[in-house]
């Protein structure tokens, strides 16, 4: 089986006024369909560049990126994105925030007016799966940070993207909320079965959620190692307190320490 997402020998240099920034250097990673991959690394290792490359917002200088067999040459339209900041639109109700991608992306865009009721039902169902039943008609400011991030996840998933790109989505949350949202994401992934690239600083988060963890070096970002996470699915949150889990986190931690020095 060929890879669903294939990042092949990609180099990216940003041209700025003060010289180029070498963001990624000969970076290669591939994901199978339905795989949950995490990308970890020290800060400033070009993880956010990776997000832009895979979603087709920025073209690579060398190398190529293929999704489902097609080379990425522009916005991919089949990806959902969520970031550390939920970025909800404060003038829209929760449900209208979730529906926003459908007003943009085809084929939903041209159907949106006609089938608004059906889409609203879908959005409400999705909100219910992340535990926001009955919050559809609220405004974002009425929600806590964790709830806003759940809405952001729903917005990223409403158009049933084959690929979900997450850029440190839980970094701004408190520890308990974060673990709650890990489980929300785990359940969504298990239920719907999309492919995920999760960029994170949190090694426990990566180990708990991902099938494989890819570690990057400091800028320019290179692939340092790929770690398989062997725990069976579905994973209960208790996995985080097992010795084998802690061993993986320690191993990754030690490696990051080396990478940061070098």
């Amino acid at each position, binding site marked *: 089986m060929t890879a669903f997402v294939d990042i092949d020998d990609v180099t990216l240099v940003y041209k700025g006024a003060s010289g180029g920034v070498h963001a990624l250097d000969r970076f290669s990673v591939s994901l199978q369909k339905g795989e949950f991959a995490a990308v970890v690394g020290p800060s400033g290792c070009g993880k956010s560049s990776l*997000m*832009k490359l895979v*979603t*087709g*917002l920025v073209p690579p200088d060398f190398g190529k990126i293929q999704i489902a067999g097609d080379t990425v040459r522009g*916005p*991919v*339209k089949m*990806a959902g*994105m969520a*970031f550390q*900041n939920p*970025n909800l*639109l*404060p*003038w829209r109700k929760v449900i209208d925030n979730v529906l*926003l*991608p459908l*007003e*943009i*992306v*085809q084929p939903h865009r041209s159907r949106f007016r006609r089938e608004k009721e059906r889409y609203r039902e879908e959005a409400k169902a999705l909100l219910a799966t992340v535990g926001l039943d009955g919050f559809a008609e609220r*405004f*974002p*400011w009425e929600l806590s940070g964790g709830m806003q991030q759940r809405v952001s996840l729903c*917005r*990223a998933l409403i*158009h049933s993207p084959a690929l979900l*790109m997450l*850029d440190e989505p839980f970094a701004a949350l408190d520890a308990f909320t974060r673990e709650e949202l890990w489980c929300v994401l785990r359940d969504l992934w298990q239920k719907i079965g999309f492919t995920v690239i999760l960029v994170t600083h949190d090694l426990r988060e990566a180990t708990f959620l991902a099938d494989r963890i890819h570690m990057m070096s400091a800028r320019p970002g290179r692939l340092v190692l790929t770690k398989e996470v062997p725990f069976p699915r579905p994973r209960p949150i208790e996995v985080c307190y097992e010795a084998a889990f802690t061993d993986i986190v320690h191993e990754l931690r030690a490696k990051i320490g080396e990478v940061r020095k070098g």
Partner: protein
Amino acid sequence: MSTNAMERLSPWLFTLGMFLIWEIICRAFKVDPFILPAPSQIFVAMATYWWPLAKNSFVTLWTTLAGFALAVVFGIVLGIVVGWSRAIYRGLYPVMIGFNSVPKVAVVPILVIWFGIGEIPAILTAFLISFFPIVVNVATGLSTIEPELEDVLRALGAKKLDIMLKIGIPRTQPYLFGSLKVAITLAFVGTVVSETIAANAGLGFLMVQAGSNFQMPLVFAGLLLLAAEGIVMYAIFAYIETYFVGWAFRSSMSAGG
């Protein structure tokens, strides 16, 4: 009395207090009415000259509103153009700053030469003085869209126009309404500046006439009416602002202005 009622009453109480202190000072120090008339004398002048005051207030009001309306239309259009692209923003900004730095008093004689004495120079001066804050605020609202949010939509294939319609324009509304409050008060300044230099009507014209006849209470009556018009218009736009963009006051995003 509850703090809520207190808060609602306090603007009236403060205004009343200001007039009282003014009156007391004028009487206690026997201030010459030619230097500073007491409020009581001003109100007497208002009652005596109510008809010319009303007529000229109306002229000032409509010329101000006409200039302001022009400023809103032009300001929004130019703001969208400037906010649309960084190149236009960088190119036009120095020009606009330069334009805004020119004292509008200096422009009035030119306008009079072009359009003659009357309402048109007043309307144009009001327009010239008040469009700048609208342009700046609309452009700021558009150019400060969160880049990540833009990424989310661009990755879905959104064009620049989609992003402007779905995010830019709604997001700019608090900035716009905030700037309208500033712009309307500036528009009054523009109108009156023009009226004092060259006009046959309006509060500015009336004050110059009254001044040259040494009728100081009437000059001050004109000033007070002008202030009252400014406050009323400001209050109207403040109300419109909370009505249309109430969400901006509740969420963390705050209005510029």
